[in-house]
């Protein structure tokens, strides 16, 4: 009578079709507009940087998986590709390839694998890689070239935020126009030049519900309020909030970096605090800090708070009464 072998498992016996690789590939797809625009703006350099970053990330990941005797499927789950892609997008187009490779190795090795691999890392791996490079090669990481389309014949070129910080651009009236910021006719990291491309990707992410909407909204609101106060108080000295939102790495940070599921809070309240923290810190660094741009540091800084935020913002369980 007992002739069939059944599957024994705990309930539930149904499962929707989503999986980790699918989420990862949604993110990769959403980065494609920015990828294409950066290739359009920086031509061969962009491709070379993307290839070397992604390649180095995959190779490092494979090395660690082999060392730790882990199943190979994690290599193809797409997370290493995203790390490489995001890292490349935050690099200046003029960066030499060997340095990019160093950054990629650092991103996967000390940003991710030392913690145990995907899901265990505390800090955003791509940003760890970038912070590593920023500290290791500060000059190379702040040397910019103009986009290929501009046909400007200068060796060095300043980003809109450099102008703002070091050239007193508001007072001089040389602030980059919002239109250029939006379309991407500016100097800067590969992926952060065109706000339009990033927004396209972000819309796709929202559509696919692959990110927590609270985080980008919180960051942008906090930054708007923070810079808005100063701008209203003294528009001759401070740039408008819209400039701050479109310039630099804010959009890529808010939509693609801060929303990294592994390193952002899991609770709704935690997400709000985290996002506000990032927004305010970006404002602080841009307005008063030593660096023209602070998105990377802000996200890394708030990453350190995530375990505490998760712990102290546990949602109220149904029926739970909390003492006031």
């Amino acid at each position, binding site marked *: 009578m007992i002739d069939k072998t059944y599957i024994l498992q705990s309930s539930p016996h149904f499962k929707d079709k989503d999986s980790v690789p699918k989420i990862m590939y949604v993110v990769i797809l959403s980065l494609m507009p920015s990828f294409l625009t950066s290739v359009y703006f920086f031509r061969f350099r962009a491709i070379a940087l993307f290839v070397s970053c992604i390649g180095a990330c995959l190779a490092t990941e494979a090395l660690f998986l082999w060392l730790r005797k882990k199943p190979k499927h994690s290599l193809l789950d797409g997370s290493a590709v995203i790390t490489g892609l995001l890292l490349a997008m935050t690099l200046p187009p003029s960066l030499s390839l060997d*340095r990019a490779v*160093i950054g990629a190795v650092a991103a996967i090795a*000390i940003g991710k694998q*030392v913690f145990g691999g995907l899901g265990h890392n505390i800090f955003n791996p791509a940003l760890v890689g970038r912070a*590593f490079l920023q*500290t*290791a*090669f*500060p000059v*190379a990481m702040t040397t910019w070239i103009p986009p290929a389309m501009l046909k400007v014949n200068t060796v060095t070129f300043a980003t809109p935020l450099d102008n703002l910080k070091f050239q007193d651009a508001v007072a001089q009236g040389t602030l980059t126009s919002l239109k250029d910021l939006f379309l991407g006719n500016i100097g800067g990291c590969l992926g952060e030049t065109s706000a339009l491309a990033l927004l396209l990707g972000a819309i796709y992410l929202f559509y696919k519900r692959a990110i927590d909407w609270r985080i980008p909204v919180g960051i942008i609101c906090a930054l708007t309020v923070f810079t808005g106060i100063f701008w209203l108080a003294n528009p001759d000295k401070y740039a408008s909030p819209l400039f701050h939102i479109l310039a630099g790495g804010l959009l890529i940070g808010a939509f693609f970096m801060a929303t990294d599921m592994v390193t952002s809070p899991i609770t709704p309240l935690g997400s709000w605090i985290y996002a506000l923290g990032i927004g305010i810190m970006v404002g602080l660094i841009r307005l008063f800090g030593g660096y023209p741009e602070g998105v990377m540091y802000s996200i890394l800084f708030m990453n350190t708070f995530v375990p505490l935020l998760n712990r102290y913002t546990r949602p109220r369980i149904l029926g739970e009464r909390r003492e006031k």
Partner: protein
Amino acid sequence: MPAKSIRAEYLKGLWQENPVFRQLLGMCPTLAVTGAVINGIAMGLATSFVLIFSSLVISSIKKLIPSQVRIACYVVIIATFVTMADRFLAAFFLPISKSLGPYVPLIVVNCIILGRQEAFSSKNSVGRSLIDALGMSSGFVLALLILSSIREILGSGTFLGHQVMGAWFKPWLIMIFPSGAFITLGILLAIALVIESKAKQRR
């Protein structure tokens, strides 16, 4: 406690009980001054000087000190030697003294020193304390040397100020920074553990 041979007593400080890699003591100077090899060596020697002499003094007068004030007495004795080292460096090796900054006076609170006094010198004979102090010092110097070599070579491309990496090499400034120090030491600790567990398996 079975009496160890002099050799074993000395060698334990180098590896099994290496203050930095195995006991995680004296981390502050280990991290702070190892940006350059010369600083690491100077720090190691200064610490050794203090460790050896305070071990000598404390093991010889251990019976006189009531236990309630022993910590106070120990720190005064240690601080005396630290001041000597500090003044000596300031007088004869000004550049090193400058680059070590407040970390020379801070030898006084290096856990290695007070720890060895409490754990060893206050309970053992003068001779054994001396051997122990020598062993620990060597272990400490060794650790500083390893860490500072890595940091200087990668961070500035030099060793003891001499260019060792080719012109192609672009120094990784991060290695001179606090973050580089932390990360390097973290990785070194892991390597030490791997070596130790391999050695254990062989035994």
